[in-house]
Protein backbone atom coordinates (compact mmCIF):
# COMPACT_ATOMS: atom_id res chain seq x y z
CA UNK A 1 0.00 0.00 0.00
CA UNK A 2 2.41 2.65 1.12
CA UNK A 3 5.35 3.77 -0.93
CA UNK A 4 7.82 2.82 1.76
CA UNK A 5 6.89 -0.81 2.11
CA UNK A 6 8.79 -3.37 0.16
CA UNK A 7 6.92 -4.65 -2.86
CA UNK A 8 7.04 -8.29 -1.76
CA UNK A 9 5.41 -7.58 1.57
CA UNK A 10 2.30 -5.46 1.13
CA UNK A 11 0.91 -3.75 4.20
CA UNK A 12 -2.29 -1.98 5.08
CA UNK A 13 -2.43 1.26 7.02
CA UNK A 14 -3.57 0.69 10.59
CA UNK A 15 -5.46 3.97 10.69
CA UNK A 16 -3.68 4.82 13.93
CA UNK A 17 -1.18 7.63 13.65
CA UNK A 18 2.17 6.46 14.90
CA UNK A 19 1.39 2.75 14.63
CA UNK A 20 2.13 2.74 10.91
CA UNK A 21 5.57 4.08 11.73
CA UNK A 22 6.23 1.38 14.31
CA UNK A 23 5.01 -1.41 12.06
CA UNK A 24 6.89 0.13 9.12
CA UNK A 25 3.80 0.46 7.01
CA UNK A 26 0.92 -1.13 8.83
CA UNK A 27 -0.70 -4.52 9.29
CA UNK A 28 0.19 -7.37 6.93
CA UNK A 29 -2.18 -7.15 3.99
CA UNK A 30 -4.61 -10.02 3.64
CA UNK A 31 -3.65 -11.66 6.91
CA UNK A 32 -5.14 -11.80 10.38
CA UNK A 33 -3.73 -9.59 13.12
CA UNK A 34 -4.25 -10.32 16.79
CA UNK A 35 -4.66 -7.43 19.19
CA UNK A 36 -4.78 -8.59 22.76
CA UNK A 37 -4.92 -6.93 26.14
CA UNK A 38 -6.85 -6.81 29.37
CA UNK A 39 -10.33 -5.40 29.68
CA UNK A 40 -10.67 -1.71 28.94
CA UNK A 41 -7.32 -1.22 27.29
CA UNK A 42 -8.70 -0.12 23.95
CA UNK A 43 -8.79 -3.27 21.81
CA UNK A 44 -12.12 -2.43 20.26
CA UNK A 45 -10.89 1.06 19.47
CA UNK A 46 -8.00 -0.31 17.45
CA UNK A 47 -10.45 -2.38 15.48
CA UNK A 48 -12.93 0.41 14.87
CA UNK A 49 -10.30 2.95 13.94
CA UNK A 50 -8.83 0.44 11.49
CA UNK A 51 -12.21 0.13 9.81
CA UNK A 52 -13.25 3.77 9.91
CA UNK A 53 -9.93 5.14 8.66
CA UNK A 54 -9.89 2.43 6.03
CA UNK A 55 -13.19 3.75 4.72
CA UNK A 56 -12.51 7.47 5.05
CA UNK A 57 -8.84 7.53 4.04
CA UNK A 58 -8.45 4.57 1.70
CA UNK A 59 -11.97 3.90 0.50
CA UNK A 60 -11.80 0.31 1.70
CA UNK A 61 -15.14 -0.90 3.05
CA UNK A 62 -15.09 -2.90 6.25
CA UNK A 63 -17.04 -5.40 8.29
CA UNK A 64 -17.21 -5.44 12.05
CA UNK A 65 -18.39 -8.64 13.66
CA UNK A 66 -19.04 -7.77 17.25
CA UNK A 67 -19.51 -10.46 19.85
CA UNK A 68 -19.78 -8.11 22.78
CA UNK A 69 -21.61 -4.93 21.97
CA UNK A 70 -24.70 -4.38 19.89
CA UNK A 71 -24.39 -2.31 16.76
CA UNK A 72 -26.27 0.61 18.30
CA UNK A 73 -24.22 0.60 21.48
CA UNK A 74 -21.04 0.60 19.46
CA UNK A 75 -22.20 3.54 17.38
CA UNK A 76 -23.02 5.49 20.50
CA UNK A 77 -19.78 4.60 22.24
CA UNK A 78 -17.50 5.71 19.44
CA UNK A 79 -19.54 8.78 18.59
CA UNK A 80 -17.63 10.75 21.21
CA UNK A 81 -14.40 9.87 19.43
CA UNK A 82 -15.62 11.44 16.24
CA UNK A 83 -16.58 8.25 14.43
CA UNK A 84 -20.00 8.24 12.78
CA UNK A 85 -20.66 4.55 12.24
CA UNK A 86 -24.31 5.09 11.33
CA UNK A 87 -23.43 7.30 8.39
CA UNK A 88 -20.85 4.81 7.12
CA UNK A 89 -23.45 2.06 7.41
CA UNK A 90 -25.92 4.05 5.38
CA UNK A 91 -23.31 4.68 2.74
CA UNK A 92 -22.81 0.92 2.47
CA UNK A 93 -19.19 1.23 3.46
CA UNK A 94 -19.55 -0.51 6.77
CA UNK A 95 -21.45 -3.53 8.01
CA UNK A 96 -21.77 -4.26 11.70
CA UNK A 97 -23.01 -7.73 12.59
CA UNK A 98 -23.67 -8.27 16.25
CA UNK A 99 -23.35 -11.95 17.12
CA UNK A 100 -25.16 -12.56 20.37
CA UNK A 101 -24.64 -15.93 21.93
CA UNK A 102 -26.88 -16.65 24.87
CA UNK A 103 -25.68 -19.85 26.53
CA UNK A 104 -28.90 -20.17 28.52
CA UNK A 105 -31.08 -20.62 25.45
CA UNK A 106 -28.78 -23.01 23.63
CA UNK A 107 -28.52 -26.79 23.88
CA UNK A 108 -25.95 -28.86 22.08
CA UNK A 109 -26.53 -32.34 20.78
CA UNK A 110 -24.53 -34.16 18.18
CA UNK A 111 -22.18 -32.79 15.62
CA UNK A 112 -22.15 -29.25 14.34
CA UNK A 113 -19.83 -26.66 12.92
CA UNK A 114 -19.73 -22.87 12.89
CA UNK A 115 -20.68 -22.51 9.25
CA UNK A 116 -23.34 -20.02 10.35
CA UNK A 117 -20.65 -17.54 11.34
CA UNK A 118 -18.82 -18.06 8.08
CA UNK A 119 -22.00 -17.45 6.12
CA UNK A 120 -22.78 -14.27 8.00
CA UNK A 121 -19.27 -12.96 7.61
CA UNK A 122 -19.11 -13.92 3.96
CA UNK A 123 -22.47 -12.30 3.29
CA UNK A 124 -21.41 -9.04 4.94
CA UNK A 125 -18.06 -8.99 3.14
CA UNK A 126 -19.53 -9.66 -0.28
CA UNK A 127 -22.39 -7.22 0.15
CA UNK A 128 -20.12 -4.18 0.38
CA UNK A 129 -16.90 -5.55 -1.10
CA UNK A 130 -15.09 -5.33 2.22
CA UNK A 131 -11.31 -5.36 2.37
CA UNK A 132 -11.05 -5.08 6.14
CA UNK A 133 -12.65 -7.21 8.83
CA UNK A 134 -12.68 -6.87 12.59
CA UNK A 135 -13.74 -9.66 14.94
CA UNK A 136 -14.33 -8.30 18.42
CA UNK A 137 -13.93 -10.40 20.63
CA UNK A 138 -13.83 -13.81 19.04
CA UNK A 139 -13.17 -15.39 22.41
CA UNK A 140 -16.74 -14.74 23.46
CA UNK A 141 -17.47 -17.91 21.53
CA UNK A 142 -15.74 -19.88 24.27
CA UNK A 143 -18.43 -18.83 26.70
CA UNK A 144 -21.24 -19.99 24.45
CA UNK A 145 -19.93 -23.22 23.02
CA UNK A 146 -18.97 -26.21 25.11
CA UNK A 147 -17.42 -28.41 22.45
CA UNK A 148 -13.84 -27.14 22.53
CA UNK A 149 -12.61 -29.52 19.83
CA UNK A 150 -15.14 -28.18 17.35
CA UNK A 151 -14.56 -24.60 18.39
CA UNK A 152 -10.79 -24.76 18.05
CA UNK A 153 -10.97 -26.52 14.71
CA UNK A 154 -13.43 -23.93 13.46
CA UNK A 155 -11.35 -20.99 14.65
CA UNK A 156 -8.39 -22.44 12.79
CA UNK A 157 -10.57 -22.83 9.72
CA UNK A 158 -11.85 -19.26 10.13
CA UNK A 159 -8.38 -17.77 9.98
CA UNK A 160 -7.36 -19.67 6.90
CA UNK A 161 -10.71 -18.78 5.34
CA UNK A 162 -10.07 -15.09 6.04
CA UNK A 163 -6.68 -15.37 4.37
CA UNK A 164 -8.22 -17.05 1.35
CA UNK A 165 -10.83 -14.34 1.22
CA UNK A 166 -8.00 -11.84 0.96
CA UNK A 167 -9.21 -9.54 3.71
CA UNK A 168 -7.03 -8.01 6.38
CA UNK A 169 -8.58 -9.02 9.66
CA UNK A 170 -8.06 -7.56 13.10
CA UNK A 171 -9.01 -10.04 15.81
CA UNK A 172 -9.17 -8.92 19.40
CA UNK A 173 -8.58 -11.17 22.36
CA UNK A 174 -8.76 -10.82 26.12
CA UNK A 175 -5.45 -11.27 27.86
CA UNK A 176 -5.04 -14.43 29.95
CA UNK A 177 -3.13 -14.98 33.13
CA UNK A 178 0.01 -16.43 31.64
CA UNK A 179 -0.90 -16.27 28.00
CA UNK A 180 -1.44 -13.50 25.52
CA UNK A 181 -5.07 -14.43 25.17
CA UNK A 182 -7.28 -16.30 27.56
CA UNK A 183 -8.01 -19.11 25.15
CA UNK A 184 -4.74 -19.18 23.28
CA UNK A 185 -5.80 -17.50 20.05
CA UNK A 186 -2.14 -16.65 19.53
CA UNK A 187 -1.63 -20.28 18.57
CA UNK A 188 -3.66 -19.67 15.43
CA UNK A 189 -2.62 -16.17 14.51
CA UNK A 190 1.07 -15.95 14.08
CA UNK A 191 1.54 -13.25 11.51
CA UNK A 192 1.17 -10.18 13.63
CA UNK A 193 0.44 -9.94 17.33
CA UNK A 194 0.10 -6.66 19.23
CA UNK A 195 -0.20 -6.54 22.99
CA UNK A 196 -1.94 -3.63 24.68
CA UNK A 197 -1.33 -2.75 28.26
CA UNK A 198 -3.16 -0.52 30.67
CA UNK A 199 -1.18 0.32 33.76
CA UNK A 200 -1.96 2.40 36.76
CA UNK A 201 1.20 3.88 38.22
CA UNK A 202 0.67 6.13 41.22
CA UNK A 203 -3.03 6.38 40.43
CA UNK A 204 -2.40 7.66 36.95
CA UNK A 205 -3.32 5.50 34.02
CA UNK A 206 -1.02 4.93 31.10
CA UNK A 207 -1.69 2.88 28.01
CA UNK A 208 1.07 1.18 26.14
CA UNK A 209 1.41 -1.19 23.24
CA UNK A 210 4.06 -3.56 22.07
CA UNK A 211 4.41 -5.59 18.92
CA UNK A 212 4.97 -9.11 20.17
CA UNK A 213 5.65 -10.50 16.75
CA UNK A 214 5.38 -9.57 13.15
CA UNK A 215 6.36 -12.39 10.88
CA UNK A 216 8.28 -11.38 7.80
CA UNK A 217 8.71 -7.77 8.82
CA UNK A 218 10.92 -5.74 11.04
CA UNK A 219 9.17 -3.54 13.53
CA UNK A 220 9.74 -1.32 16.52
CA UNK A 221 10.29 -3.50 19.57
CA UNK A 222 9.76 -1.04 22.38
CA UNK A 223 6.69 -0.37 24.43
CA UNK A 224 4.97 2.64 23.00
CA UNK A 225 2.52 4.80 24.88
CA UNK A 226 -0.79 5.40 23.18
CA UNK A 227 -3.70 7.67 23.83
CA UNK A 228 -7.41 7.67 23.33
CA UNK A 229 -8.88 11.13 23.10
CA UNK A 230 -11.59 12.96 21.18
CA UNK A 231 -9.82 12.21 17.89
CA UNK A 232 -9.46 8.50 18.53
CA UNK A 233 -6.23 6.63 19.03
CA UNK A 234 -2.72 7.81 18.52
CA UNK A 235 0.55 6.11 19.29
CA UNK A 236 3.68 8.02 20.16
CA UNK A 237 6.66 6.34 18.55
CA UNK A 238 9.02 7.85 21.06
CA UNK A 239 12.34 6.98 19.57
CA UNK A 240 11.54 6.92 15.90
CA UNK A 241 12.74 10.43 15.28
CA UNK A 242 16.16 10.76 13.79
CA UNK A 243 18.80 13.31 14.67
CA UNK A 244 18.89 14.96 11.30
CA UNK A 245 17.52 18.38 11.96
CA UNK A 246 19.07 21.45 10.42
CA UNK A 247 20.02 23.98 13.06
CA UNK A 248 19.81 27.71 12.84
CA UNK A 249 22.79 30.06 12.96
CA UNK A 250 20.65 33.02 13.96
CA UNK A 251 20.93 34.52 17.41
CA UNK A 252 17.91 35.60 19.42
CA UNK A 253 17.75 37.65 22.57
CA UNK A 254 16.97 35.99 25.88
CA UNK A 255 14.75 38.94 26.62
CA UNK A 256 17.06 40.63 29.08
CA UNK A 257 20.00 42.75 27.92
CA UNK A 258 22.01 41.84 31.01
CA UNK A 259 21.53 38.16 30.41
CA UNK A 260 22.28 38.50 26.72
CA UNK A 261 25.68 39.91 27.57
CA UNK A 262 26.64 36.71 29.33
CA UNK A 263 26.71 34.95 25.97
CA UNK A 264 29.55 35.68 23.62
CA UNK A 265 27.20 36.13 20.70
CA UNK A 266 24.82 38.38 22.60
CA UNK A 267 22.02 35.88 22.82
CA UNK A 268 21.21 32.26 22.19
CA UNK A 269 20.79 30.28 19.00
CA UNK A 270 17.35 30.30 17.44
CA UNK A 271 15.68 26.93 17.82
CA UNK A 272 17.75 25.86 20.80
CA UNK A 273 16.54 24.50 24.09
CA UNK A 274 17.27 26.34 27.29
CA UNK A 275 17.13 24.82 30.72
CA UNK A 276 16.71 27.11 33.72
CA UNK A 277 17.33 25.30 36.97
CA UNK A 278 17.19 26.68 40.44
CA UNK A 279 15.88 26.43 43.96
CA UNK A 280 12.54 27.78 45.02
CA UNK A 281 12.17 31.52 44.63
CA UNK A 282 15.26 32.09 42.59
CA UNK A 283 14.47 33.46 39.19
CA UNK A 284 13.19 30.67 37.07
CA UNK A 285 9.73 31.88 36.16
CA UNK A 286 10.93 35.46 35.77
CA UNK A 287 13.62 34.41 33.32
CA UNK A 288 11.14 32.26 31.46
CA UNK A 289 8.75 35.19 31.26
CA UNK A 290 11.56 37.34 29.85
CA UNK A 291 12.19 34.76 27.17
CA UNK A 292 8.49 34.63 26.36
CA UNK A 293 7.91 38.36 26.21
CA UNK A 294 11.03 38.91 24.10
CA UNK A 295 9.69 36.41 21.63
CA UNK A 296 6.29 38.13 21.58
CA UNK A 297 7.95 41.48 20.99
CA UNK A 298 9.65 39.98 17.94
CA UNK A 299 6.14 39.33 16.67
CA UNK A 300 6.37 35.60 17.29
CA UNK A 301 3.86 33.26 18.85
CA UNK A 302 4.58 31.74 22.22
CA UNK A 303 2.96 28.95 24.18
CA UNK A 304 3.60 28.97 27.88
CA UNK A 305 2.78 25.68 29.60
CA UNK A 306 2.41 26.23 33.28
CA UNK A 307 2.30 23.29 35.66
CA UNK A 308 2.30 25.39 38.79
CA UNK A 309 0.46 28.66 38.45
CA UNK A 310 -2.70 29.69 36.71
CA UNK A 311 -2.50 31.99 33.74
CA UNK A 312 -3.83 34.93 35.70
CA UNK A 313 -1.40 34.40 38.53
CA UNK A 314 1.60 34.44 36.20
CA UNK A 315 0.39 37.62 34.53
CA UNK A 316 -0.17 39.35 37.89
CA UNK A 317 3.16 38.30 39.36
CA UNK A 318 5.16 39.26 36.32
CA UNK A 319 3.46 42.62 36.12
CA UNK A 320 4.64 43.35 39.66
CA UNK A 321 8.22 43.36 38.44
CA UNK A 322 7.52 45.23 35.27
CA UNK A 323 6.95 42.40 32.81
CA UNK A 324 3.61 43.01 31.18
CA UNK A 325 2.27 39.91 29.49
CA UNK A 326 -1.34 40.90 29.13
CA UNK A 327 -1.11 42.82 25.81
CA UNK A 328 0.53 39.78 24.22
CA UNK A 329 -2.19 37.56 25.60
CA UNK A 330 -4.82 39.86 24.15
CA UNK A 331 -3.16 40.04 20.77
CA UNK A 332 -2.96 36.28 20.69
CA UNK A 333 0.81 36.17 20.53
CA UNK A 334 1.00 34.51 23.89
CA UNK A 335 -0.98 31.45 24.93
CA UNK A 336 -0.77 30.32 28.52
CA UNK A 337 -1.88 26.75 29.06
CA UNK A 338 -2.09 25.93 32.73
CA UNK A 339 -2.79 22.42 33.99
CA UNK A 340 -1.96 20.22 36.93
CA UNK A 341 0.59 17.52 36.21
CA UNK A 342 -1.53 14.96 38.04
CA UNK A 343 -4.49 15.74 35.78
CA UNK A 344 -3.36 13.05 33.37
CA UNK A 345 -0.49 10.76 32.51
CA UNK A 346 2.74 11.93 30.96
CA UNK A 347 1.80 10.80 27.51
CA UNK A 348 -1.44 12.67 27.65
CA UNK A 349 0.42 15.81 28.64
CA UNK A 350 2.84 15.29 25.80
CA UNK A 351 0.01 14.85 23.37
CA UNK A 352 -1.71 18.00 24.58
CA UNK A 353 1.57 19.89 24.21
CA UNK A 354 2.24 18.55 20.74
CA UNK A 355 -1.32 19.22 19.66
CA UNK A 356 -1.29 22.82 20.82
CA UNK A 357 2.08 23.31 19.21
CA UNK A 358 0.75 21.96 15.94
CA UNK A 359 -2.32 24.14 16.18
CA UNK A 360 -0.70 27.42 17.18
CA UNK A 361 2.64 27.00 15.38
CA UNK A 362 4.64 28.99 17.90
CA UNK A 363 8.25 30.12 17.65
CA UNK A 364 8.77 29.59 21.35
CA UNK A 365 7.53 27.07 23.87
CA UNK A 366 7.99 27.49 27.61
CA UNK A 367 7.39 24.66 30.05
CA UNK A 368 7.37 25.84 33.64
CA UNK A 369 8.41 23.73 35.49
CA UNK A 370 9.25 20.31 34.12
CA UNK A 371 10.24 19.10 37.58
CA UNK A 372 6.58 18.78 38.48
CA UNK A 373 6.20 16.09 35.86
CA UNK A 374 8.30 13.75 37.97
CA UNK A 375 5.32 13.47 40.29
CA UNK A 376 3.47 11.52 37.63
CA UNK A 377 6.19 9.51 35.98
CA UNK A 378 9.52 7.87 36.50
CA UNK A 379 12.72 9.63 35.63
CA UNK A 380 13.19 7.58 32.50
CA UNK A 381 9.64 8.23 31.37
CA UNK A 382 9.91 11.96 31.91
CA UNK A 383 13.18 11.93 30.04
CA UNK A 384 11.64 10.03 27.17
CA UNK A 385 8.79 12.48 27.04
CA UNK A 386 11.11 15.46 27.07
CA UNK A 387 13.37 13.95 24.41
CA UNK A 388 10.32 13.59 22.26
CA UNK A 389 9.21 17.12 22.97
CA UNK A 390 12.64 18.66 22.44
CA UNK A 391 13.08 16.69 19.23
CA UNK A 392 9.76 17.93 17.97
CA UNK A 393 10.64 21.51 18.81
CA UNK A 394 14.10 21.21 17.27
CA UNK A 395 12.75 19.83 14.04
CA UNK A 396 10.40 22.77 13.80
CA UNK A 397 13.11 25.24 14.84
CA UNK A 398 11.13 26.35 17.88
CA UNK A 399 12.89 27.89 20.87
CA UNK A 400 12.31 25.82 23.97
CA UNK A 401 12.59 27.02 27.54
CA UNK A 402 12.26 24.60 30.43
CA UNK A 403 12.49 25.44 34.08
CA UNK A 404 13.20 22.91 36.77
CA UNK A 405 13.32 23.04 40.53
CA UNK A 406 16.52 22.00 42.32
CA UNK A 407 17.26 21.85 45.99
CA UNK A 408 19.37 24.53 47.57
CA UNK A 409 21.31 22.32 49.89
CA UNK A 410 24.34 20.89 48.18
CA UNK A 411 26.49 22.39 45.52
CA UNK A 412 26.10 19.55 43.09
CA UNK A 413 23.17 18.88 40.83
CA UNK A 414 21.61 15.97 42.61
CA UNK A 415 18.26 16.07 41.03
CA UNK A 416 16.56 13.40 39.04
CA UNK A 417 14.98 15.63 36.47
CA UNK A 418 18.08 17.69 36.07
CA UNK A 419 20.13 14.58 35.52
CA UNK A 420 17.70 13.45 32.90
CA UNK A 421 17.33 16.67 31.02
CA UNK A 422 20.52 18.66 31.35
CA UNK A 423 22.22 16.70 28.59
CA UNK A 424 19.34 17.50 26.25
CA UNK A 425 19.54 21.21 26.79
CA UNK A 426 21.67 23.42 24.57
CA UNK A 427 21.88 26.15 27.17
CA UNK A 428 21.75 25.66 30.89
CA UNK A 429 21.27 28.53 33.31
CA UNK A 430 21.44 27.73 36.99
CA UNK A 431 20.12 30.00 39.72
CA UNK A 432 20.92 29.83 43.40
CA UNK A 433 20.19 31.54 46.66
CA UNK A 434 23.13 32.61 48.71
CA UNK A 435 23.24 34.40 52.05
CA UNK A 436 25.72 37.24 51.82
CA UNK A 437 26.10 39.41 54.92
CA UNK A 438 22.81 38.17 56.26
CA UNK A 439 21.00 39.07 53.08
CA UNK A 440 19.66 36.66 50.55
CA UNK A 441 21.26 37.13 47.20
CA UNK A 442 20.31 35.49 43.97
CA UNK A 443 23.14 34.18 41.93
CA UNK A 444 22.91 33.15 38.32
CA UNK A 445 25.40 31.08 36.41
CA UNK A 446 25.59 29.86 32.85
CA UNK A 447 26.52 26.21 33.20
CA UNK A 448 26.80 25.61 29.51
CA UNK A 449 25.75 26.83 26.16
CA UNK A 450 26.47 24.86 23.06
CA UNK A 451 28.23 26.45 20.17
CA UNK A 452 29.39 29.69 21.74
CA UNK A 453 31.37 31.06 24.62
CA UNK A 454 29.75 32.30 27.76
CA UNK A 455 30.51 34.20 30.91
CA UNK A 456 31.78 31.72 33.45
CA UNK A 457 31.51 33.38 36.83
CA UNK A 458 28.44 33.55 38.96
CA UNK A 459 26.47 36.74 38.45
CA UNK A 460 24.61 38.46 41.25
CA UNK A 461 21.18 39.66 40.28
CA UNK A 462 18.50 41.59 42.06
CA UNK A 463 14.79 41.73 41.55
CA UNK A 464 13.12 45.12 41.84
CA UNK A 465 9.84 46.65 40.67
CA UNK A 466 11.48 47.36 37.37
CA UNK A 467 12.63 43.80 36.86
CA UNK A 468 15.86 41.89 36.91
CA UNK A 469 19.01 43.82 37.56
CA UNK A 470 22.44 42.36 37.07
CA UNK A 471 23.89 45.34 38.84
CA UNK A 472 27.52 46.17 38.63
CA UNK A 473 28.64 42.80 37.41
CA UNK A 474 31.93 43.16 35.68
CA UNK A 475 31.68 41.18 32.55
CA UNK A 476 34.86 39.34 31.99
CA UNK A 477 36.08 37.78 28.85
CA UNK A 478 33.94 34.95 27.65
CA UNK A 479 35.37 31.51 27.62
CA UNK A 480 35.95 29.61 24.43
CA UNK A 481 33.02 27.93 22.86
CA UNK A 482 31.99 24.75 24.55
CA UNK A 483 30.30 21.89 22.91
Amino acid at each position, binding site marked *: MSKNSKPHFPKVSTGVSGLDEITLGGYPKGRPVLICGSAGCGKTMFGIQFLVKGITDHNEPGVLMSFEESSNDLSKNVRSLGFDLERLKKENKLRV*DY*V*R*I*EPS*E*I*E*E*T*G*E*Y*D*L*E*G*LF*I*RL*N*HAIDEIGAKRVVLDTLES*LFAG*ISNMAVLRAEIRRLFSWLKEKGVTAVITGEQGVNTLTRHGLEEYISDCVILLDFRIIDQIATRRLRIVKYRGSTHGTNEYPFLIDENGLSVLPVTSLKMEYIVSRDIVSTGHPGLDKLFSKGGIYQGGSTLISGAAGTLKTILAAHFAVASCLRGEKVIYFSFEESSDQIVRNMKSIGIDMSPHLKKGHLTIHASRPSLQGLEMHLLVLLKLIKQIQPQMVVVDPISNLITIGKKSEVRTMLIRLIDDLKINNINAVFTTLTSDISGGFKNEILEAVSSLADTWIDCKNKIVDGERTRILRIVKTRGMGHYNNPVVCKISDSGLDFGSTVYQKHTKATT
Partner: protein
Amino acid sequence: MNKQTEKLELRLYIAGQTPKSVLALSNITQYCKEHLLGKYSIEVIDLLKNPQLAAGDQIFAIPTLVRKFPEPLRKIIGDLSDKEKVLVGLNIRPVNKEN
Protein backbone atom coordinates in the same frame (compact mmCIF):
# COMPACT_ATOMS: atom_id res chain seq x y z
CA MET B 1 -52.50 -33.43 32.27
CA ASN B 2 -53.00 -31.44 29.13
CA LYS B 3 -51.35 -32.73 26.08
CA GLN B 4 -49.54 -30.31 23.81
CA THR B 5 -52.38 -28.09 22.71
CA GLU B 6 -50.38 -25.39 21.02
CA LYS B 7 -48.81 -25.92 17.69
CA LEU B 8 -45.01 -26.04 17.89
CA GLU B 9 -43.22 -23.86 15.36
CA LEU B 10 -39.74 -25.03 14.53
CA ARG B 11 -37.13 -23.70 12.21
CA LEU B 12 -34.10 -25.66 11.10
CA TYR B 13 -31.13 -23.77 9.75
CA ILE B 14 -28.83 -25.69 7.43
CA ALA B 15 -26.10 -24.82 4.97
CA GLY B 16 -26.53 -27.04 1.94
CA GLN B 17 -27.20 -30.75 2.07
CA THR B 18 -24.37 -31.72 4.37
CA PRO B 19 -24.57 -35.04 6.24
CA LYS B 20 -25.05 -33.21 9.54
CA SER B 21 -27.91 -31.16 8.17
CA VAL B 22 -29.62 -34.11 6.53
CA LEU B 23 -29.31 -36.09 9.74
CA ALA B 24 -30.69 -33.24 11.81
CA LEU B 25 -33.71 -32.88 9.57
CA SER B 26 -34.52 -36.58 9.62
CA ASN B 27 -34.06 -36.71 13.40
CA ILE B 28 -36.34 -33.81 14.19
CA THR B 29 -38.98 -34.99 11.70
CA GLN B 30 -39.00 -38.38 13.33
CA TYR B 31 -39.27 -37.00 16.89
CA CYS B 32 -42.10 -34.70 15.91
CA LYS B 33 -44.02 -37.48 14.16
CA GLU B 34 -43.69 -39.68 17.22
CA HIS B 35 -44.55 -37.19 19.91
CA LEU B 36 -46.36 -34.19 18.51
CA LEU B 37 -49.18 -35.84 16.59
CA GLY B 38 -49.25 -33.31 13.81
CA LYS B 39 -49.18 -30.27 16.03
CA TYR B 40 -46.00 -28.88 14.64
CA SER B 41 -44.44 -27.19 11.68
CA ILE B 42 -40.83 -27.37 10.55
CA GLU B 43 -39.45 -24.71 8.29
CA VAL B 44 -36.07 -25.49 6.76
CA ILE B 45 -33.86 -22.53 5.91
CA ASP B 46 -30.83 -23.09 3.76
CA LEU B 47 -28.39 -20.30 4.55
CA LEU B 48 -26.40 -20.95 1.41
CA LYS B 49 -29.45 -19.72 -0.49
CA ASN B 50 -30.56 -17.07 2.01
CA PRO B 51 -27.47 -15.95 3.93
CA GLN B 52 -29.19 -12.76 5.06
CA LEU B 53 -31.52 -14.79 7.30
CA ALA B 54 -28.71 -15.96 9.59
CA ALA B 55 -28.41 -12.76 11.60
CA GLY B 56 -32.11 -12.56 12.50
CA ASP B 57 -32.15 -15.67 14.65
CA GLN B 58 -28.51 -15.19 15.72
CA ILE B 59 -27.35 -18.33 13.97
CA PHE B 60 -23.66 -19.17 14.28
CA ALA B 61 -23.64 -22.98 14.32
CA ILE B 62 -24.96 -25.33 11.67
CA PRO B 63 -27.30 -27.11 11.96
CA THR B 64 -29.37 -25.10 14.44
CA LEU B 65 -32.92 -25.90 15.39
CA VAL B 66 -34.90 -22.93 16.69
CA ARG B 67 -38.17 -23.16 18.56
CA LYS B 68 -39.95 -20.01 17.47
CA PHE B 69 -43.18 -20.78 19.24
CA PRO B 70 -44.13 -21.10 22.03
CA GLU B 71 -41.91 -18.54 23.75
CA PRO B 72 -39.27 -18.41 25.07
CA LEU B 73 -37.02 -18.96 22.12
CA ARG B 74 -34.93 -22.09 22.36
CA LYS B 75 -32.02 -23.21 20.24
CA ILE B 76 -30.51 -26.62 19.80
CA ILE B 77 -27.32 -26.87 17.83
CA GLY B 78 -25.99 -30.09 16.37
CA ASP B 79 -27.35 -33.01 14.39
CA LEU B 80 -29.99 -33.66 17.10
CA SER B 81 -28.86 -37.26 17.57
CA ASP B 82 -29.60 -37.25 21.30
CA LYS B 83 -33.37 -37.66 21.35
CA GLU B 84 -33.78 -37.19 25.09
CA LYS B 85 -31.91 -33.91 25.02
CA VAL B 86 -33.85 -32.61 22.04
CA LEU B 87 -37.22 -33.39 23.63
CA VAL B 88 -36.21 -31.79 26.91
CA GLY B 89 -34.71 -28.85 25.10
CA LEU B 90 -37.93 -28.26 23.17
CA ASN B 91 -40.03 -29.03 26.24
CA ILE B 92 -41.87 -31.85 24.46
CA ARG B 93 -43.52 -34.49 26.64
CA PRO B 94 -42.90 -37.94 25.20
CA VAL B 95 -46.25 -39.40 24.06
CA ASN B 96 -45.74 -43.05 25.04
CA LYS B 97 -45.34 -42.28 28.76
CA GLU B 98 -48.82 -40.81 28.96
CA ASN B 99 -50.56 -43.73 27.30
